[in-house]
């Protein structure tokens, strides 16, 4: 049974069709990217999956449950971070988390809540009201709230929007860790292709209410993310190439291109350096996803 299954999903608002028959499947443990221009129907799809709004037609199942029929039962097992933070400005981070923990019926001690704040990089002793927090801190707190019920499926709407590069990297690492350690299924709606390349193993591209592409992020590399590494000197490529999870795709001068699977780029770089490859620079190969996105979209609402 897949974690999420949508078949021929349709939805209109005041007679204006938004979803024309969306179909997709997300397996357990996937980090699934949901891409598309503004107004393409991403947020509407997420809200239907969460049971907040009902579909007009089609079949939707999350963890085998119909979100429209079994809302509260499903919402104990899933959670989401909407694009807006939805934080109470007058509360402290700790009291906000305790409030939502209570709503979900979680029986945590004060120490558990504090540990959860530390996990997202927030200081549990910070008693300032949330309205004084930076955007990044609010995003982290929103993520802590979205993880409060230890969900099996997590929906994220633009999770790194407005974060600086360091903040984005930290959120990426946290999501990858949760995915690996807890086998958390994550569905991310975003425009930021770098997020998708770093996090996702599969994507759907939505345009004008229809799925135009569903499949791996890098179809030409068997769905594995690709990275280019600059070596400090030439001619140091080991033969045979024997690094599990790191496939050598190309070697030109002092540059190599690799596909990575089952490990993070940082782990892959560390493995290569430990084995004598003098890597001085690394970059995700992003042109493919951008081309894929542009090929399957026609521009959204402004």
């Amino acid at each position, binding site marked *: 049974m897949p974690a999420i299954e949508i078949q021929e999903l349709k939805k209109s608002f005041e007679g204006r069709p938004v979803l024309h028959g969306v179909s997709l499947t997300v397996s357990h443990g996937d980090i699934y990217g949901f891409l598309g221009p503004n107004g393409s129907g991403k947020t509407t799809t997420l809200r239907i999956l969460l049971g*907040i709004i009902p579909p007009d037609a089609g079949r939707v199942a999350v963890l085998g449950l119909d979100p429209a029929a079994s*809302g509260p039962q499903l919402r*104990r097992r899933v959670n*989401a971070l*909407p694009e807006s933070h939805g934080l109470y400005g007058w509360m402290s981070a700790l009291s906000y988390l305790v409030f*939502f923990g*209570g709503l979900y019926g979680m029986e945590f001690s004060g120490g558990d809540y504090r540990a959860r704040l530390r996990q997202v990089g927030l200081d549990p002793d910070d008693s300032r009201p949330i309205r004084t927090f930076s955007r990044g801190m609010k995003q982290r707190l929103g993520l802590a709230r979205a993880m409060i019920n230890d969900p099996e499926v997590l929906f994220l709407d633009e999770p790194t929007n407005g974060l600086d590069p360091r903040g984005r990297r930290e959120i990426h690492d946290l999501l990858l860790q949760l995915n690996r350690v807890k086998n958390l299924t994550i569905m991310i709606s975003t425009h930021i292709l770098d997020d998708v390349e770093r996090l996702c193993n599969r994507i759907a591209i939505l345009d004008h209410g229809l799925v135009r592409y569903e499949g791996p992020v890098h179809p030409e590399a068997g769905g594995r993310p690709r990275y280019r590494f600059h070596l400090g000197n030439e001619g140091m490529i080991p033969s045979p190439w024997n690094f599990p999870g790191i496939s050598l795709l190309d070697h030109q001068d002092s540059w190599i291109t690799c596909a990575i699977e089952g490990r993070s780029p940082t782990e892959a770089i560390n493995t290569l350096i430990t084995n004598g490859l003098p890597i001085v620079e690394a970059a995700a190969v992003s042109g493919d996803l951008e081309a894929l996105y542009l090929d399957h979209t026609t521009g959204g609402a402004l």
Partner: protein
Amino acid sequence: MNPGLILVKREFQEDFKASRGAVFLVITTLVLSAFAVLLVSNTELSLLDNAQAVYMMAGIIIALAALVAVIRGSDGFAGERDRQTLEPLLLAPINGPGLAAAKLCGILFFWLTLFILAIPYLWAVGSTGQNLFAAILYLFLAGTLIVLVFGGAALALSARMKTFKGVLSLGLTMLLLWGSPVLLGPSLRQSAVGRLLDLANPFAAALNTLDSVIIDSQGLSWQLLRLAVMVSYAVIILWWLYAATRRLEP
């Protein structure tokens, strides 16, 4: 703790920790103080008898309660929608009527605060006269029903309309429409239309109950019809609120 109680606790905390509650309380105190000074000075000058001063003070408290109930009710869902805090609540495993019940409890808690705050003012205005205890008792009863009616109606509108400003405009218009027949002169109120308006109007029912108890010293049996009107309105509004919040959208 039950999720519903946690929501009620948050509503209660917001009244005392957030600036919203403090502003309401300060304004309420200023309004009550100003009217108390006016009424006491009129009583001292023998322009008003003591019972009339208590009745007028109770009427002002009922009007304030209805106004605050409309403002708080309008903010209930539409305000949260404006501040984008509604969606995380909708993601939690609690249904719409449960959320509405918690918000209505928050409004009733605020009414209780206002009522406790008003008792010293009623005492100051009417301690030397008769029926003060009955006035306080019936003020609590009628005030609670009025807060349920107007707060519940504003919450139901708030669940269906998108913006706080829109709901507040409609809620205040609704309050003025219910309140305006009370301003009819005594002769017009004695006409058939005036009597009908009085009978079908929960706001008039509340004020007429206070009039009957404080000024005419009439007992419970005289108040039953008017109390029944207010209770009927409260039941209808609560059913409407339940129906309006069965499916809430962000």
